[in-house]
């Protein structure tokens, strides 16, 4: 593990006692011992089990839904269809942030009424005494369909005369970027390189499927305890069923993996309806095969890059077309397309640029948020194109990258000036160097090295006006409480708040308890999405803790007759920096404050930078708060007879700004290495006429423990980020370059690029045959 610290960093002299250290996360022991409670572990007296009937047609009229036989089954408490729902007839699938703003057309029926638009669309809900009865009831629901023509390809959906699934023209969203003078740029080019890259559906495949428990309590408050990334969905639940916002309490348990799949509401509103109808607690844990249908997978993208380059490798013009398959409902497709658009040039400066991007509706599974959120698909094309340009010019691809990297102070795709450090070169150089020597080829295997860089935003889109609140307080015995509604989705979100608070208040991390994820009693923190949880809630918590520190030190300063600046806090003591023997225990300090009526707690709000959107004609404007940069490098062995690809080494090098917990950062890099490997090589949701062909974990192939290569994390710290202590977001960024690095390594090994993911053995053989035949 290498760490490089920037001597120029603004807080370079700050002495950190806990932040950045690989301390044991507060959530680790309970997870290791198996005592952590997940939503599916919860139980209540009188609890019913739910089950959901999903459509098995992709495009059909619902002629008749007859639930009478299911309702007559002993042990069934209620069966709900669209006919039983409140008039709102829809649930928000947007992410309104803290201000409630919505994009158009993002309501989705809670249950299908009159027609189904994708295979898997929910039609009916059952609550029964136990899961077996609920399943049996599903089989007793009679449905009469009338099949309709469907559209299963976004290009078909955009063709004139296509049946309309969404809006007036099946266009869910589109963006334009017009920058510089593209004609002039192409005229100046010595070469023009054009390639089309495609990516597939990817399933989040979290260990824990959707799970929740809902009940109406003695105060007529609807309670939901759920596996979610977003407790603010309590508002959407309330709106969908016509309850006041203050009568819905949504609590997030530890989440066994989110990756964006639990960002838009999944099962919560179904359970809310069943709990209200049955007046009993109702639980649902989606079986795996239905989990595949209950959130949105990663969008397939088709991406064409036409790049003008000068003989010395400088990009003179770039024209990009992006098309994504949104599936049957909008969900977050407009935002994801925006991320892809902003990320389309990767970490490179392109002054003459045209981008046209569109997301089209089809009768496929509605795609939605997934780690990387469109950026990683766009980045894959960009980084593949870098290799193709280098090959054409006969240059080293890192050299081509170096001639085009964006730098601090440059304008990105949308004209936003990059303010933080851009260490793309350092990261890529180190990652590649860490791959070491190539093993020698054998008669049947070829070794390849590949690298990919990226630019990935952290923090939400600026016009969402994002904010996060946190509360920090010190108890009379000197122990500390943090309250934040942040959801803990397994990346150490709550632990990081304990570590930051411990740092500021000088208490060991295990003396801090974080109460998190309660939409009613912990201060709202916003989503654990967009690589924002640490950035936003870390800052809010640091602000609250710093205010408490100030309050405490002001009392001690008076007690010792010194200035606040002369005091420091460590090991639950407050001491005079120049005379550490003069100290007071934190618990005594708290007593002083209490006696003087000084607040020992603070509620802080952190607000992200905001702006008002982009120009629709040029795409220019500030979209994100900031960006993370880094690189991933891979070493692969390709069997040229069978086409099998084995990843031997997988190295992530990232400028994380400031690691809060080093071990957690490494965990993110390691997880991303495998998730990206799956995307590059074996994961693919295959749909046939909208019907899922790979709806189980024996058919949908995520890498297993036996597929793990040697993984290394290289953590660089520029301390230039907008997060606490200069941290940048890293949850998505570390994932952004992985698949591209593997694709590039395969191309390096076999001498031909495969433009279509996943790179199956079959595609390798096909590419080798084509290469052979064009010789």
């Amino acid at each position, binding site marked *: 593990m290498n760490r490089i610290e920037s001597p120029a960093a603004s807080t370079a002299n700050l002495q950190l006692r806990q932040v950045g250290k690989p301390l044991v996360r507060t959530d680790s022991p309970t997870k290791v011992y198996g005592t952590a409670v997940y939503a599916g572990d919860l139980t209540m007296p009188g609890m019913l089990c739910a089950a959901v009937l999903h459509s098995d047609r992709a495009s059909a009229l619902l002629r008749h839904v007859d639930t009478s036989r299911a309702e007559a089954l002993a042990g069934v408490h209620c069966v709900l269809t669209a006919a039983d729902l409140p008039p709102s007839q829809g649930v928000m699938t947007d992410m309104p942030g803290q201000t409630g703003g919505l994009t158009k057309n993002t309501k989705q029926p809670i249950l299908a009424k009159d027609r189904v638009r994708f295979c898997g669309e929910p039609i009916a809900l059952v609550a029964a005494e136990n899961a077996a009865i609920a399943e049996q009831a599903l089989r007793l629901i009679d449905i009469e369909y009338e099949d309709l023509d469907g559209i299963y390809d976004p290009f078909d959906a955009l063709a004139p005369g296509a049946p309309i699934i969404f809006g007036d023209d099946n266009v869910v969203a589109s963006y334009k970027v017009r920058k510089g003078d593209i004609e002039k740029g192409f005229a100046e080019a010595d070469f023009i390189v054009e390639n089309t890259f495609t990516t597939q559906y990817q399933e989040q495949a979290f260990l824990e499927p959707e799970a929740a428990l809902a009940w109406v309590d003695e105060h007529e408050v609807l309670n939901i305890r759920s596996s979610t990334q977003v407790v603010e969905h309590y508002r959407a639940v309330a709106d969908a069923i016509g309850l006041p916002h203050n009568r819905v309490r949504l609590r997030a348990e530890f989440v066994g993996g989110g990756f964006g799949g639990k960002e838009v509401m999944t099962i919560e509103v179904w359970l809310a309806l069943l709990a209200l109808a049955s007046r009993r607690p109702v639980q649902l844990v989606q079986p795996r095969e239905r989990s595949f249908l209950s959130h949105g997978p990663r969008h397939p993208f088709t991406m064409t890059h036409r790049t003008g380059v000068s003989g010395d490798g400088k990009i003179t013009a770039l024209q990009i077309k992006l098309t994504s398959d949104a599936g049957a409902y909008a969900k977050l497709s407009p935002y994801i397309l925006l991320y892809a658009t902003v990320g389309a040039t990767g970490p490179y400066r392109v002054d003459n640029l045209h981008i046209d991007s569109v997301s089209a509706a089809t009768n496929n599974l509605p795609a939605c948020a997934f780690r990387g959120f469109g950026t990683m698909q766009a980045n894959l094309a960009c980084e593949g194109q870098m290799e193709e340009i280098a090959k054409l010019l006969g240059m080293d691809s890192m050299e081509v990258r170096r001639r085009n990297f964006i730098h601090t102070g440059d304008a990105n795709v949308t004209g936003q000036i990059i303010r933080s450090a851009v260490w793309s070169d350092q990261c890529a150089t180190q990652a590649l160097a860490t791959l070491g020597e190539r093993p020698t080829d054998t008669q049947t295997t070829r070794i390849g090295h590949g690298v990919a860089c990226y630019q990935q935003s952290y923090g939400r889109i600026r016009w969402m006006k994002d904010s996060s609140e946190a509360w920090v307080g010190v108890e009379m015995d000197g122990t500390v409480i943090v309250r934040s509604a942040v959801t803990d989705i397994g990346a150490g979100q709550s632990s990081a708040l304990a570590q930051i608070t411990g740092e500021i208040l000088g208490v060991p991390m295990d003396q801090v308890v974080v109460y998190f994820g309660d939409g009613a009693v912990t201060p709202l923190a916003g989503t654990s999405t967009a690589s924002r949880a640490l950035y936003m809630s870390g800052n809010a918590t640091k602000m609250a803790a710093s205010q408490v520190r100030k309050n405490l030190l002001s009392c001690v300063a008076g007690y010792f007759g010194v200035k606040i600046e002369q005091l420091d806090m460590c090991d639950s003591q407050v001491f005079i920096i120049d005379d550490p023997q003069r100290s007071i225990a934190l618990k005594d300090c708290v007593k002083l404050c209490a006696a003087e009526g000084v607040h020992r707690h603070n509620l802080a709000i952190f607000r992200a930078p905001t702006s008002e959107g982009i120009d629709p004609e040029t795409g220019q404007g500030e979209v994100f708060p900031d960006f993370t940069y880094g690189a991933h490098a891979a070493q692969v062995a390709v069997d040229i007879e*069978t086409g099998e690809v084995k990843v031997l080494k997988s190295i992530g090098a990232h400028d994380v700004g400031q690691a809060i917990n080093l071990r957690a950062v490494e965990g993110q890099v390691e997880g991303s290495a495998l998730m990206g490997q799956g995307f590059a090589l074996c994961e693919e949701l295959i749909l046939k006429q909208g019907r899922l062909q790979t709806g189980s974990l024996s058919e949908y192939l995520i890498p297993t423990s036996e597929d793990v290569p040697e993984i290394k994390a290289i953590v660089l710290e520029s301390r230039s980020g907008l997060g606490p202590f200069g941290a940048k977001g890293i949850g998505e960024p570390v994932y952004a370059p992985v698949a591209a690095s593997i694709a590039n390594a395969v191309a390096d090994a076999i001498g031909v690029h495969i433009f279509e993911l996943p790179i199956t053995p*079959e595609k390798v*053989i096909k590419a080798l045959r084509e290469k052979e035949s064009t010789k």
Partner: protein
Amino acid sequence: MLPPFELLEPHSLDQALKMLATSESVPLAGGTNLLPDLRARGEAGGRFISLAALDQLHGIEHSDSRVLMGARTTLSDILHDPLMPTAAPSLVSMAKVFAGSMVRNAATVAGNICYGSPSADVVPPLLSLDAELTLASAAGERTLSLNDFLLDYKKTARRPDELLISVSWAPPTTGTANLFYKLGRRRGDAITVVGVAVTITIEKGNCTKARIALGSVAPTVFRAQEAEEALVGGPLTATTIGTAAQAAAQASRPIDDIRASADYRRHAVHMLVRRLLTEAWQTAGSQHD
């Protein structure tokens, strides 16, 4: 969720065979195929006979001339048996890449064979070793070759009243190479795209016996006999190996599915048979040098 089903739990082989004779039921060993099937069907299942308590079906016996493996031997048992690397090298190679360790602990040799799947990984190695199966019923026992046992897609020669109780084969002689390769879409827990087992015996520089067993490329695991015949009688050369590999590919009748196309599978058979034969020739030949 797993729908309800009836489970009979005999304490002896006799009792189990009586149950099989009198009730329509399916023997349940590790359950790694039957239970996922039941779950996928979603409807209340039929009747299973648990083989868990039948001690007679456990254990592996080695003698100079024969290996006798109880039908309830698990894939993990194969890996833990110290004599197996010489008694059936291909079987050990196979067990190492069979599913993942949890499945290996439960899945049994007999279950994998009797399920009759073309992608049953246990079958190609045993087929390449000329394994024989002993089936018992209330009426008595019979022994037949594994080759004759496999009839068609998920169809075997087992009568509903019969139980596969043991598998046996002659351990490879000196000068014999016995190899297996599994081509999957990932390393762990993968359903086989192409499985190949070969056994080659070399005596005085000539190939005296050849077995090529192919998995996942036809309705059932099968022996590419034309390819085998192309090898016997002389030394293995690049030419004879190439001819045999081609014949094996031609004998394959694969399908297109979510894992691979038929075309690719045929290609992979060609490549893997060529590779394993080349390696077998080198290994077996060197045992005499």
